[in-house]
C-alpha cells in the first residue's frame, strides 16, 4: 500500500497529498511554514491510515476481519468500534433497514463496472440470506453474527476519518485548513487569504467541474454513481443497493452533495437520500439541509 506524503505550495496554500481508503486525500492549509504544513499533513495521514488499518475489510487481522471470520462466535470490540456499530444501528433504524453494514456481501453478485453484468435473480436471493442486521446480536461491547455474514463500515469510514482528522488539526493549529478525502471534506475555518474554499463538484461527462461551491466552514459530502453503474437494455442500475431486496434502488439521483456541520452528517444524509430513490429531493427538502442533487 502506498504510504507516502507529498507536500506542494499551490498558489498561496500548502497542499499535502496522500492515498488512503482507496481515495486521493489532500490537506490544504494556510500554515506559514513548510514545517507546520508537513506536521498537519502527517497528523492527518497518520489518523487516516490508522482508521483504514483498523476498519478496512480488505486487511487481515483487524477488528472487522475478526468479526467477519468469527464464524458465529461472539466478539468483544473496543470502544471506538462499538461507537461506530451503535452509529450504524441508528442509521439502520432511520433508513427503515436500508442502510445496513451487513449488505457488503451483495457485492459478490453485483459488480458495478459500467458493463451489462446484471446478476441472476436466484443468485441475488441466495446472497440475501446472509444480509440483515436483524440477524446480528449486538450487546455492546459484544457482537455475535451468524456464520457467513460480514460487516463493512466503509459506508461510514471515510466521513468519520475526515471529521476525526479535522478535529485533530483544530486542536493542533488555528490555521484554516481543508481536509478532503476523495470529495468528502471539512473546512476547519474560512481561509484567511481568500473569500472561501472553492470546491468543484465534478460533472459526469467532461472533466470540467459543473458546479463550484464556496465553503467557508463545515463539511461537504457527495454520494453518486458518476462512474459506478451497470447498463443493461437501456436500464441504468445505480450502485446504491437496497439490502431489503438485494437490488439497486430504482430512480436514485446520479449524485447528491450535502453541506452539513460535520462530514459524517453530510455523508449520511446524502446516503439516506439516495436510498429514497425517486423521493430523494422530497426527503432532502424536508431535512432543511443545503443540498445539490443531479438526476
Amino acid at each position, binding site marked *: 500500500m502506498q504510504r507516502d506524503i507529498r507536500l506542494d505550495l*499551490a*498558489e*498561496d496554500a500548502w497542499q499535502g497529498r496522500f492515498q488512503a481508503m482507496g481515495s486521493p486525500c489532500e490537506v490544504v492549509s494556510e500554515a506559514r511554514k513548510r514545517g507546520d504544513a508537513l506536521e498537519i499533513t502527517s497528523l492527518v495521514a497518520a489518523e487516516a491510515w490508522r482508521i483504514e488499518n483498523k476498519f478496512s475489510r480488505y486487511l487481515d487481522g483487524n477488528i472487522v476481519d475478526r468479526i467477519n471470520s468469527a464464524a458465529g462466535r461472539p466478539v468483544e470490540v473496543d470502544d471506538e468500534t462499538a*461507537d*461506530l456499530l*451503535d*452509529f450504524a444501528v*441508528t*442509521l439502520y433504524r*432511520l433508513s427503515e433497514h436500508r442502510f445496513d453494514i451487513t449488505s457488503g456481501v451483495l457485492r459478490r453478485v453485483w459488480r458495478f463496472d459500467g458493463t451489462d453484468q446484471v446478476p441472476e435473480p436466484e443468485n441475488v436471493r441466495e446472497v440475501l440470506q446472509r444480509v440483515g442486521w436483524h440477524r446480528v446480536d449486538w450487546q455492546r461491547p459484544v457482537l455475535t453474527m451468524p456464520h457467513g455474514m460480514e460487516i463493512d463500515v466503509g459506508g461510514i469510514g471515510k466521513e*468519520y476519518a475526515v*471529521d*476525526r482528522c479535522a*478535529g485533530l488539526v483544530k486542536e493542533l493549529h488555528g490555521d484554516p485548513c481543508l481536509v478532503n478525502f476523495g470529495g468528502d471534506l471539512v473546512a476547519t475555518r*474560512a481561509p484567511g487569504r*481568500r*473569500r472561501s474554499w*472553492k470546491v468543484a463538484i465534478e460533472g459526469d*461527462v*467532461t*472533466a*470540467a467541474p459543473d*458546479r*463550484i*461551491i*464556496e*465553503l*467557508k*466552514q*463545515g*463539511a*461537504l459530502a457527495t454520494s453518486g454513481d458518476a462512474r459506478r453503474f451497470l447498463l443493461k437494455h437501456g436500464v*441504468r442500475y445505480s450502485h446504491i443497493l437496497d439490502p431489503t431486496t438485494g437490488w439497486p434502488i430504482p430512480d436514485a439521483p446520479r449524485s447528491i452533495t450535502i*453541506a*452539513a*456541520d*460535520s462530514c*459524517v*452528517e*453530510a455523508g*449520511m*444524509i446524502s446516503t*439516506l437520500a439516495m436510498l429514497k430513490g425517486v423521493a430523494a429531493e422530497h*426527503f432532502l427538502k*424536508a*431535512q*432543511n*439541509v*443545503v443540498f*445539490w442533487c443531479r*438526476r
Partner: protein
Amino acid sequence: MSRKENRSISAALAAATCTLLGSGVPAPVDAQEEPLWDFNTSLLYYGEDDDRVKDYSVSAIARRMFVDDRYLTLGLTVDGLTGATPSGAIRQDVPQTFTRPSGNAAYTVPAGVLPLDDTFKDTRVALSAGWQQPVGETSLINVGASASKEYDYTHFGVNAKFARDFNQRNTTLSAGFAYSFDSLDPVGGAPTPLTPMLDVGDTSNRTGNPDKDVLDIIFGVTQVISRNLVVQANYSYSMSDGYLTDPYKVLSLVDASGDTLPQTLTPGPSHQYLFESRPDERTKHSIYGQAKYFMNGKVLDASYRYMTDDWEIDSHTVDLHYRIPFGADSYFEPHLRFYTQSEAEFYQLSIPDSQPLPSFASADYRLGDFDAITAGLKYGWRTRNDNEMSVRVEAYRQTGSVPAGQIIGNQAGRDNYPDLNAIIVQVGYRF
C-alpha cells in the same frame, strides 16, 4: 413520510454524530454555490486600417443565480464607432465630390482614391435580458429580450430556446427562435432606391423611416461521444423582411469607358451616382457542426458553417480554437478562422448607362466575393483574488475580387475591391 418525521431523522442523525465523534456541537456549516452574481466585462477595440471603421466597445454581462439552476442574465454594451466606410462608388482618375447622406453638405475625394463616406460616427447602446430554467428533470428553457439604439437605428428582439436531454443525458435536442423588429431613421431620410444622389439641399428623393423584421429558427443536436468528445450540429433558418437596403450606399453610373459619368452641379455631386437597391426579402439556411475535444486540460474546439441564401451568397466558415493550459492558473488559446463567400446575384461594381436599370443593385463590398482570415491569440489567467482576466489580440484580413465580367474599360487598371485589414484587441475580466 411526513415532513415532521423527516425532520426527526436529521435531528437523530445529528445527535448520533455527536456521540460518535465525541465532540461538542460543531461550528455551523457555511456553504453556498458560487456567488449569486457574477460579472463578465470586456473592453474591445476594433480598428480597420486606412482610417476606416474604429469601434471602441465596453460590455458587461451580469448573471444572477437562483436556486434550482435558474439564471437571470442582463447585458449592456456601449459602442463608439468612428471612421469611414466605402460608399460603393468606384475610384476615378479625377477628384469626386459627393453630397453627404444628410443632404446638407458635400465632400470631395481625391483622384485615384477609394471613396469613403466619413460621416460614419455613432454611439450604440444595447441591452439584453435572459432567463434560463430547467423544466422537469431533463429539459431547459431560455427566454430573452433585447433592444438597441443608435442615432439612426432601433432594434427590439425576443428569443426563446427549449432543450431536452435524452439517452442518459448524452444527447440534447434543442429548438429555438428569435424575432427582431428593427426600424431605421437614416440621416436625411431613406433615399428611394436607384434614384440619383441629388444636389446639396435637394431632398426630393428621400422618403420616411423604413423598417424590417427578421425571424430566425434553429434546431440543434448535441451528442456526447465519449468523456473526451462532444459534438454538436445545428440547422438554422433566417427570414428577413422589409427594408434591407443600406441607405448610405451608392453605385457609380458609368459609360462604355468604365468611367463615372460627370455632371455639373455645384456644390453637389461631380458625377452620377445611384442609391443602391436590395430585395425586400432574404432567406438564409445554414448548417453548423462543432466538435469539442478534451485532452488532459487541453481543449480543441473546431467548427464549420455552411450558409446559403436566396441572394445567392454561399459562405463557408471554419473556426478553430485550441486551449492550452500554461501552469496551474493560466492558458493560451490560439484562434484561426477562415471565411469565404460568393457574391450576391445583384452585386455589381458599377451600373453601365447603356443598359436598362436593374431591379436590384449594390456595390457594397460586404456583398461581394471575398475571403477572410482571422488569426489570434488569447491569454487568460486567474488573478490573485480568484477572478479571471484575459487578453485577446487578433488580426483580420479580407481580400475580395470583382467578377471579371463586371469590369468595364478603364476599371481594369484600378483596384476595384476594397481589401480590408483590421486589428482586434479585447481585454476581459470576470468576477
